[in-house]
């Protein structure tokens, strides 16, 4: 089995504040990995390093066997330029806590923009693909709406469709249900479960322990910038070994 994401000793600091202090993590192809942990533990930062929205300071980070943000030629690391980074990012889908749909575009235009401008698809091809994906997330009737006219759950499902339209090999979810009203969480999790069943490789930062238990193949528990514990969800969520995970679970469960 080949690895989709491979992190070795990844470090990241903002000014003097160390957010990641040497993280090792592996995500196999077709696997769902959940990152859990208290806020400020570095889960989101790790996720953002994977598609180079944040630059990691030290360590090695590979996606699909290739270094993130750099190229190794001879014995030197060359930083990639904007165009090269963007080309790699387009193969990694990302879903944000605050949805971040393009506010000035309709639902349909949100899903076609990247296809046309990055993948160079024709308007017809992009629209056909967008309609197929919107139907998959149950929003084909809303294609002419603007994001501000949709509920949070609907916006997040459009955001998932927008990411899927780029046909990514890896999907990153950064607390996708944290900004939602409780009754809307289910509809987004259902779409994510469906996606997991279809064999998509996913990295999910979440506070939904039931989702982690049900869908994840591996769960990583981060605390204060290090991986404290990891493993099969049924084992680590029911029988945690470390004191910190025990404490964390007692608060969230």
């Amino acid at each position, binding site marked *: 089995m080949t690895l989709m994401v491979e992190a070795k000793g990844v470090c990241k600091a903002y000014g003097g504040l160390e957010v990641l202090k040497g993280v090792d993590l592996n995500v196999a192809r077709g696997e769902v990995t959940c990152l859990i942990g208290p806020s400020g533990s570095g889960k989101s930062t790790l996720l953002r390093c994977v598609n180079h929205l944040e630059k990691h300071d030290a360590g090695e980070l590979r996606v699909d066997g290739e270094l993130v943000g750099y190229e190794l030629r001879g014995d030197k690391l060359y930083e990639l330029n904007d165009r090269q980074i963007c080309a790699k990012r387009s193969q990694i889908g990302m879903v944000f806590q605050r949805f971040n749909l393009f506010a000035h575009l309709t639902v349909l235009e949100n899903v076609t923009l990247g296809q046309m401008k990055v993948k160079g698809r024709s308007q017809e091809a992009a629209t056909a693909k967008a309609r197929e994906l919107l139907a998959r997330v149950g929003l084909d009737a809303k294609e002419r709406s603007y994001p*501000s006219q949709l509920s949070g759950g609907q916006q997040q499902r459009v955001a998932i469709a927008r990411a899927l339209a*780029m046909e990514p090999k890896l999907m990153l979810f950064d607390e996708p249900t944290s900004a939602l009203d409780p009754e809307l969480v289910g509809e987004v999790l259902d779409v994510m479960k469906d996606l997991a069943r279809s064999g998509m490789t996913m990295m999910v930062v979440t506070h939904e322990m039931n989702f982690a238990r049900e869908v994840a193949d591996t769960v990583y528990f981060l605390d204060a910038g290090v991986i404290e514990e990891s493993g099969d969800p049924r084992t680590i969520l029911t029988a945690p070994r470390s004191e910190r995970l025990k404490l964390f679970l007692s608060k969230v469960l």
Partner: protein
Amino acid sequence: MSTNGDVTVKVVPVRHVGRYVSGAVALVIIAMVVHTIFSKLPTGQYACHGAAPHRSCHPKTEWRFSWDVIRHYFFSAEVFHGVEITLALTVFSMLLGIIIGLTLAVMRMSPNRLLSATAWTYTWFFRGTPVYVQLLLWFNISAIYPQLSLGIPFTSWTFVHINAVNLFNPFRAALMGLALNEGAYMSEIARAGLISVDEGQIEAASSVGLTRRQTLRLVVVPQAMRVIIPPTGNEIISMLKTSSLASVVSVVDTLGAATNIYSQNYLVIPLLLTASLWYLLWTTVLSSGQFYVERHFARGSLRTPPPTPIQRLRADVIGIARKFRPVHDVGVAS
């Protein structure tokens, strides 16, 4: 009407006495203004009709505002040409100003300190000196740069030579001065617009794989427009009037044409009013255009767009008509 159990109780609305009083005062003032605008003055001459025994005379009068003179000059070829110059100055200096402003705004936000400092210095200079002075400076620039050449800096290699006096004719000097000055103001407006776009929009655009340039063009600028358009509309309207300063560098714009005419016939007030009416006409046209442009760029940010003036007028008329309908109709809705 409202019901309280089985008894019907009449609802008495609050009387706004203050509103009626201030309304009456406003009405009197409006009447006075309209009256004086359309009043007539005695000329001191008499108009007489008929022969000796039946001869009748009455004093001759004329409009206080010389409406007949204004009507004559409003459509005169000279004023018309002046209006064309005013519009050309406004349109071209705003276009150049917007291009300069957007460039400066992007420079200001660049991580390159030299670029952002350059943009800051430009704004500092052009906002810190009066437009009047800047216009005179461009008009007289040939005093210190009689020859302008295009070539490689700090070498003797030059390709094109231009005589500065020819290049900076009055119109081009005025255009240059107005556009460079406007660029400084537009840069601040554009910067405020670009900053107003949520960081998350930029992250989402990068995560889809758009390059920095595509993100700016396809995601940031269209959303910044909502913030940029209203003050830009004000700038255009303000520019229409500021362009009248061009007459100091002997450009014959609307005001220039008016002053040229009254310096010959001494009809100062009627010609100044003629110019004012032309400015008013165009500011009215621009303001109504501004409304529809703002409405267009607000899409996606408002659930329901604001009503157009015609829609609002219709709603007002219907509202007033309802108010005057018999009382028993009013209570039906409850």
